[in-house]
């Protein structure tokens, strides 16, 4: 029976990821009750954003791959994995099983609420991408649809449960009652970072050092902006790779472009998904009569805190330098735009102490680097399946946010030990 399901999906794969995404979203929209016109518009808009996203990722890989190889040769650094950052979002939505995964996730959330396993209703459909990314990586590793869907649901169940434990603290800290923040991309970092912070709060001296947001932000100024970070980073990499002046400048421009254009394409995808998301809210509201649920909302609603913003500014360059830690093979570049998501979950428990937040974040990033390195094979596989152009000689790609997620890694490792990984 596994086989029949699989064969059905191999056929579907032949449509190409653009077709898959469009059809999957159309079906989901209709199933949730959208009018055909709205469903078509949403599906098309999201697909357009997805196409744009892939264009940028292809450019990123085309530029960074030769630069990375040159760097590795010259410096003998073991950093041969190219960072595609949120390119993984595209792969998450465009994977062959995306439709099944999304429907399974919605059903799982509703079921878990009925079973009183969780109080969080996650209708922020957009952030399903974290769970879909887990699914994409597992699919890349195993080519097995059943494991793919199961992995996504398990990851979601874990995220929802963890979201429940931190929700009360966040509700109080940020003054947002009745909500929860189950975005996979912030919950796993939070669950690693919070114990670290609690530990730091017990160590003498460290527990008393204060670091104030105002001065931090003033000092960082223009260097905190993604476009500048991209340009500087690109040029730096060009220099290290031994490029001549023109190529160094070009790489700078291209990286700056990626930092700005990647999120813009995601915005377009979001526009398409918002209609489906709102419809999902209405659909699930029907099942929620009489139960106390916390509404799962997007993590950016708690990003505005000054300590969080300062920590983001500080950690961004630090993460780049952390690439050289032993055991890691990926130079963090495109993933830098995702740094905020690693920090958001920690601030409330760190009592806004920037030093504590940064130290905890470093532990989180180290773990993510190692997991990203370990799952680079699966990441590269799903990229190929979704149709990304990988230039000659590129061995591997990966990403931090979700490409390095420890829960996904654990699921991957279990399947590996059971012999299901086909890499």
């Amino acid at each position, binding site marked *: 029976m596994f086989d029949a399901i699989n064969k059905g999906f191999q056929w579907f794969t032949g449509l190409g990821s653009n077709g898959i995404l469009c059809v999957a979203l159309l079906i989901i929209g209709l199933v949730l009750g959208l009018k055909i016109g709205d469903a078509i518009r949403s599906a098309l808009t999201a697909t357009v954003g997805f196409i744009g996203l892939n264009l940028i990722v292809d450019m990123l890989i085309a530029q960074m791959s030769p630069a990375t190889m040159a760097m590795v040769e010259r410096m003998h650094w073991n950093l041969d994995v190219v960072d595609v950052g949120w390119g993984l979002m595209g792969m998450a939505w465009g994977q062959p099983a995306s439709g099944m995964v999304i429907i399974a996730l919605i059903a799982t959330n509703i079921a878990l609420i009925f079973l009183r396993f969780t109080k969080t209703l996650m209708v922020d459909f957009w952030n399903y991408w974290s769970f879909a990314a887990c699914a994409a990586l597992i699919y890349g590793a195993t080519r097995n649809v059943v494991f793919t869907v199961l992995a996504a649901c398990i990851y979601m169940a874990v995220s929802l449960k963890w979201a429940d434990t931190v929700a009360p603290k966040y509700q109080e800290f940020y003054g947002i009652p009745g909500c929860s923040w189950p975005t996979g991309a912030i919950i796993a970092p939070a669950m690693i970072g919070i114990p670290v912070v609690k530990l730091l709060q017990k160590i003498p001296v460290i527990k008393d050092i204060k670091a104030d947001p105002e001065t931090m932000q003033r000092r960082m100024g223009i260097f905190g902006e993604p476009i500048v970070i991209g340009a500087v980073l690109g040029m730096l990499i060009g220099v290290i790779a031994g490029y001549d002046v023109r190529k160094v400048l070009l790489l700078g421009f291209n990286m700056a472009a990626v930092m700005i254009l990647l999120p813009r394409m995601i915005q377009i995808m979001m526009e398409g998904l918002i209609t489906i998301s709102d419809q999902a809210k209405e659909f699930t509201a029907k099942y929620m009569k009489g139960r106390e649920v916390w509404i799962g909302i997007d993590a950016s609603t708690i*990003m505005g805190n000054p300590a969080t913003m300062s920590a983001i500014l500080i950690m961004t360059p630090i993460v780049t330098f952390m690439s050289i830690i032993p055991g890691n093979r990926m130079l963090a570049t495109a993933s830098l735009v995702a740094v905020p998501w690693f920090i958001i979950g920690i601030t409330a428990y760190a009592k806004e102490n920037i030093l504590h937040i940064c130290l905890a974040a470093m532990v989180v990033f180290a773990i993510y680097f190692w997991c990203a390195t370990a799952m680079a094979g699966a990441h590269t596989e799903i990229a190929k399946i979704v149709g990304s152009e990988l230039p000659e000689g590129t061995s591997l790609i990966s990403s931090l946010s979700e490409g390095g997620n420890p829960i996904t890694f654990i699921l991957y490792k279990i399947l590996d030990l059971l012999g299901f990984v086909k890499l």
Partner: protein
Amino acid sequence: MADEKIVVVVCGAGFATSTAGENEVKKLARELGINVKLNKRRATELKTVLSTMKPDMYLLMTPVTVELNAPKVNGVPFISGIGKDEALEEMRQILTAE
């Protein structure tokens, strides 16, 4: 028609929540028959906004602690659905004032 109202939508990241906030303002503007100029800014850009702009309203998609130079509305209800009507009413009051 009536003169333009300037609204700054403040978001954490810049793509997830701001679209929802913008849509609500646009809908309200249509309902009230007024012109609204929407500006999207990230929370990190607020210092610049405060020194270069004088908007009529801030719609905050993430709580901020900076003191603002115009009335502000908490926009998180538009994401969670909780308290949405009250938030709409607040916006209505501010945009139809003066």
